[in-house]
């Protein structure tokens, strides 16, 4: 390691500051006491569904469709999560079912 302890602390502090800026900035720009602009209010309602879509893709970004198991275990497990969730609508059951299915597939089948 080439950095001194002080440099390490400053680097970690920079990462903390960068992360906290992204989290606090909207609350500083649109404080609770003032009326939030209508367009920002609209974004606050319209964004989450799109962001959850982004997070789904983000969490699956490293799946390889052209090599290895071609994303088949992922596709099967995703289908199971969706079926379980529409059937019982119990968050924990859907997540556990999909994950156990995926673990069995990648450990035993593919």
């Amino acid at each position, binding site marked *: *390691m*080439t*950095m001194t302890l002080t440099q390490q602390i*400053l*680097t*970690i*502090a*920079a*990462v*903390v*500051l*960068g*992360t906290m800026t*992204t*989290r*606090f*900035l*909207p*609350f500083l720009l*649109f404080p*609770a006491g003032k009326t*939030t602009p209508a367009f*920002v209010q*609209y*974004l*606050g*309602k*319209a*964004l*989450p*569904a*799109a*962001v*959850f*879509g*982004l*997070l*789904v*893709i*983000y*969490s*699956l*970004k490293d799946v390889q469709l052209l090599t290895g198991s071609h994303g088949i275990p*992922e596709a099967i*497990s*995703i289908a199971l*999560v969706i079926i379980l*969730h*529409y059937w019982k609508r119990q*968050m*924990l059951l*859907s*997540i556990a079912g*999909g*994950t156990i299915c*995926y*673990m069995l*597939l*990648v*450990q035993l089948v593919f």
Partner: protein
Amino acid sequence: MTTHPSQQGTIGRAFHAAFPYTIPILTSFIFLGLTYGIYMRAAGFSFWYPMLMSLTIFAGSVEFVAANLLLGAFHPLQALALTFMINARHLFYGISMLDKYKHTGWKKFYLIFGMCDENFSINYTAAIPASVDQGWFMFFVTLLNHCYWVLGATLGGIFGAMIPFNTEGLDFVLPAMFIVIFLEQWLKDTNHTSGILGLALSLLCLLYFGADGFILPSMIAIFVALTLLHKPLEKGSDPQ
């Protein structure tokens, strides 16, 4: 401690309501945290590093990046800019949480500090019963998940790679949870334009820009699309 009995009831109820929502994260964060701790250990850092970094940064992907920053040359401004870009999606979370975090008093600071992907997703979508205090519920979701993450990272840093069972595939907990959260929002919405846009634009950006650089283009595409659709979406929108 001089907590009023009725306040104690409020806090207890919120804890009991919040804990089940954090169980998937318990699995996922302990596992991811262990991986992070092991990663840091393998890179030559003692367990103090993953422990303190998971406590203060509390943003999964960036902590792995931070490990590499620590191994490179000293460039704090570059670290700051890089972190800001990787975590820029939090800006969207903040905009969506302006209302929900409004009346949470002193807890607001910690809720914003701990607003990672998972805490935002749960706190935004959870159907909190009317008898449960919203602020305390979201506080416990955040606190519990924070604890899981620090615990996992610390244990990973201490024990290294001595995990007793085959965990291959356990990381699917995270995509499974985001799919469920996406579905929950889908079932709640009557207009699905935003959800479809989010999936489709992100997928297009992933295919075009690749796994390492698609987040920022996706965010810009989503922002532009929602801005262009402001009028038609607002007209047909359903009250939350």
